């Protein structure tokens, strides 16, 4: 499983998930009848929620990789709120929510408990939104990395604080409108030059595994989770999950947006071991960032009567820079 999958592009595409033409062991987790349905249906996420999709795939894949021995720790945020309105719960795995800023530390504690109990088969996953990860929970996350606790931390990046009504986080992209970065004034939306790249910061901790993934490529996401679960120690997975509500995009455009983010270079997909990039998903034909931006109301102010060519060009340069930095074009 540690080897890259040798599947022909036409057999899997980036559109399909399971594939009946493949042998059993090569099939996606979701295509199997035995998938665990870790986060089952009936929860209260918005239609087309990328976070719900990402979480479902990630945790199911982790379940398969560990023989269903997963404990989940969740930060406060959309994923927590839409999945556990008491007395209901959508989680089929042991699951705990404590606070907004402490998922990584609670997970460290759960992992310590497993060590103390001598149960090395039970694995721990912490998960949170970009706000809970890049902002308020950042100290706990860095502490967990530094101690190399046996936890996979998954950040579902929808690029803002969605649960409290779409406010800016340090993962909000430049120019994006949020409730706290309104599309007003000389530089409407979020300003350029701020924000954190947590995958790179995670790599700087030289933890055994860091990867980015996207709901645009769910086979890749499953493979990365599977890989992550075969490694011990602190691991970090950053998943790009469009949010129709916060982005002002159509529910049916979630996957398309995720794909455009990857194919424009704005969201590079890669893996890193101990601080070094070991693989990347190359782009065959880069699409202009405008294809991506235009589908979202949060960038609508860039495309008014007089398009903001200056800042559109700036965003394009960001994408080009990623393509250069990560060598995304062969």
């Amino acid at each position, binding site marked *: 499983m540690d080897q890259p999958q040798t599947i022909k592009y036409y057999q899997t595409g980036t559109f399909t998930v399971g594939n009946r033409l493949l042998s059993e062991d090569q099939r996606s987790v979701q295509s199997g009848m035995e998938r665990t349905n870790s986060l089952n249906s009936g929860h209260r996420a918005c239609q087309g929620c990328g976070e719900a999709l990402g979480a479902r795939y990630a945790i199911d894949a982790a379940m398969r990789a560990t023989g269903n021995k997963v404990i989940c720790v969740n930060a406060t945020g959309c994923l927590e709120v839409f999945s556990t309105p008491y007395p209901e719960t959508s989680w089929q795995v042991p699951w*705990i929510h404590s606070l907004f800023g*402490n998922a990584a530390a609670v997970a460290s504690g759960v992992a310590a*408990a497993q060590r103390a109990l001598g149960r090395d088969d039970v694995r721990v996953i912490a998960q949170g939104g970009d706000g809970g990860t890049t902002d308020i929970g950042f*100290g706990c996350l860095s502490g967990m990395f530094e101690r190399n606790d046996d936890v996979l931390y998954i950040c579902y990046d929808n690029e803002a604080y969605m649960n409290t009504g779409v406010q800016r986080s340090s993962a909000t992209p430049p120019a994006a409108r949020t409730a706290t970065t309104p599309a007003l004034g000389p530089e409407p939306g979020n300003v350029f030059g701020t924000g954190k790249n947590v995958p790179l910061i995670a790599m700087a901790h030289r933890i055994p595994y860091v990867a980015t993934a996207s709901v645009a490529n769910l086979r890749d996401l499953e493979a990365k989770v599977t890989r992550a679960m075969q490694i011990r120690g602190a691991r970090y997975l950053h998943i790009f999950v469009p949010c129709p509500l916060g982005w002002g995009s159509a529910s049916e455009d979630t996957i398309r947006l995720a794909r455009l983010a990857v194919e424009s270079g704005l969201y590079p997909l890669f893996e890193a071991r101990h601080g070094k990039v070991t693989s990347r998903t190359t782009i065959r034909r880069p699409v202009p960032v405008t294809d991506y931006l235009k589908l979202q109301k949060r960038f609508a102010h860039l495309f008014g009567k007089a398009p903001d060519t200056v800042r559109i060009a700036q965003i394009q340069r960001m994408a080009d820079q990623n393509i250069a930095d990560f060598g995304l074009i062969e």
Partner: protein
Amino acid sequence: MLKQTEGSHAVAEAIALCRPQVVCAYPITPQTHIVEGLGEMVKSGELTGCEFINVESEFAAMSVAIGASAGGVRSYTATSSQGLLFMAEAVYNASGLGLPIVMTVGNRAIGAPINIWNDHSDSMSVRDAGWIQLYAETNQEALDLHIQAFRLAEELACPVMVCMDGFILTHAYERVDVPSQEEVDAFLPPYAPRQILDPAEPVSMGALVGPEAFTEVRYLAHHKQLRALDLIPALAAEFKRAFGRDSGGLLRTYRTEDAETIVVSLGSVNGTVQEVVDEMRARGTRIGSVSICSFRPFPLETLRAALGHAKRVVVLEKCLAVGLGGIVSDGVRKSLSGIQLKGYTVIAGLGGRAITRASLTRLFEDAERETLEPVTFLDLNTDIVNHELERERQERRTGPTAEAILRRMGTVASRIG
């Protein structure tokens, strides 16, 4: 075994005897020696089966304890002052989740101005967090209370805070009787969690609860504390049978039977109070003292029974409800509702100011003459206060008060770290 040892180390030994499986550590004076002691025991192999986790903050310390406890193991941490405030959000969360974590608070003042010395401002600031709060009077009692705390926490599924006066207890060398592992094992069975994060039987913990059930949840938390009012004395009695010592319980009375004046306090100051009581008794004053061990749950009935017959009560508190007066006094007054008797609040020992026998004697004599103010700040330097008030009246911009006071007292502010 009798030992001459530091309070912090006595607590570390007590914790080790309780066989914790996860201990989280983050330093702050005066709690630090406790977790250092435990770290040493884990590293040297003296304490086995225990994960010792150095974390990056107190918030993380309590969070790791939450995860560990939910993961099904006995968990412990310790803190003080700013550290307790820094972890406050997780402190509430631990009790809401019903996790039987035990934590020592080495009591210390809260800044600004920064002050590392003892008072009860820190633990009092989280008094309503849903934790049981026990206050130790001596190092022996601190040691004994921790052993009882795990029993209490685990029987109730509720976290317990053992509060001990910073420096006065944590850094004092006293003779303590350290029980044997067999004795503690007989008293404290292995941890049997009620609910645990286990793939074999998945549960969701910490769900979102709306108005339809939140009141009920809080009621049950309150109910749990009321049950503790029975359990705490029962455990203290069992502890006495097993270890031969009176330790803990809801409160302790000293020469109160025929007392007209009763002094109520928490923690180590009761030793000094008792000495003054003895001296005044020798001079024919009918005075006694009550020391509250269980501040949460607050022993309303037991306290009423202990105080009801007196003429006046002096509540000696090492904390201040700014804008109100006494925190402990509030509970004492509630316990005496309907009973006619004079009550005095005395704010004493803030930021480590010594509470001397001389000032206590003067204070209690004033109480006896009923010339005390309803709220008194023990040994308050009124000259300085008046000078500061005057300065504030004259100069519109007064600057930080603490520095001004130190300058006036001839103390160079920069030397206070």
